[in-house]
């Protein structure tokens, strides 16, 4: 087995793991982490295609490598947006709970 296909298999396992994590976890943070694993697996598959397509004196096909760079930056933006949404949601929920506590409603949820 060549090095590239070894990483290819690793990519498949990562995709399986990431997909499982995204679907099985309910906590948003864990889902975001798993989404990143899934993404890493997909990017690695591009990397394997690039490696196998090495030619013209290059260590790999530059097209999929460039696609991965674009993809990594987009995935970072997604992670940042998701975590900022989560931060705001947590703060609002905490404020809601505090307000509920102050009201001292016996039937409060």
């Amino acid at each position, binding site marked *: 087995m060549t*090095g*590239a*296909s*070894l*990483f*290819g*298999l*690793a990519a*498949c*396992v*990562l*995709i*399986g*793991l*990431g997909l499982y*994590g995204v*679907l099985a976890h*309910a*906590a*948003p*943070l864990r889902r*975001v*982490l798993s989404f*990143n*694993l899934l993404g*890493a697996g997909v990017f*690695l*598959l591009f990397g394997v*295609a*690039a*490696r*196998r*397509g*090495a030619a*013209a004196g*290059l*260590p*790999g*096909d*530059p*097209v999929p*490598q*460039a*696609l*991965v*760079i*674009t993809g*990594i*930056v*987009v995935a*970072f*933006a997604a*992670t*940042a*947006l998701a*975590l*900022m*949404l*989560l*931060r705001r949601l947590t703060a609002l929920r905490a404020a809601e709970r505090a307000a509920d506590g102050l009201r001292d409603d016996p039937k409060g949820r």
Partner: protein
Amino acid sequence: MRAGMMNASLDAVLVVTLLAVALFSVLARQARAAVIGFIAFGLLLALAWVRLGAVDVALTEAAIGALTAPLLLGASAFAGTEKPASPPLRLALAALCALIAGTLAVIVLAAPEPAPSLAMQAVAPLGALDLGNAVTAVLLAYRALDTLLETVVVLLALIGIWSLAHDENWRDAPASPAAPSPPLDLLARVLPPVGLVVAMHLLWVGADAPGGKFQAATLIAAMGLLLMMAGLTPPPALGDARLRALVVAGPAVFLAIGLAGFLFPGSFLAYPDGWAKPLIIVIEMALTVSIALMLLLMLLGPGARKPSA
């Protein structure tokens, strides 16, 4: 032959560790443990990219990983208490994911031989473009539209984050991440010049060797964050006109040069003969500033009330 064996065992160790850390990150009970596992995963992943001969990607992965780490560690405080799926459901999901992974493995192992590749086509015009790094040529010439729009994606994410503020202070500075301490202070005084030099180097060699705007921008953003964490620089006000201008500069310059291509040589995002390299360097420099700023501002988050004390 011996070197081949060595490389193969190195790859095997790397892959096994990579997968073990990923498994740990998915299955860990505590959110913080999962986050730390993921950060380790990112480092190993950068090594995997080196082994795949993709040094440009490895640099991007390592740099972005370093920026993701503080974001994730900060967020591990907001790990929800939501219960994961019930055991039978989890079993079913695991079976489904294993099926998908297995199918993919079959496809990977049966990949066509020789592998299709655009490498030859990508290398041929490098001389005319006066570039040495084919990845840079893909990002800024052949698929420049992708790169242009990708900066717009980042900008939209930033606007989305800004929109999460309270109405009355959305144009104010974000909450300061400062946690000053003497050693951090020292680090923040010594490291940024080094980081800036390395960033300039990465940007400059990017035309001919691995490196480029993303890697440089990430490094600059990290240095900025360090300065703010040490309390040496306060976060900027988000309504500030000059800040906004710097954020817009990169995509605007890119777009302007792209539109100028309509007139000469006659096609959007095409460069006139002999002008490719200087124009690409101008675009890369402008993008570096804007992307560095956007990444930093994304980490800082939406505008917040100034501390009253």
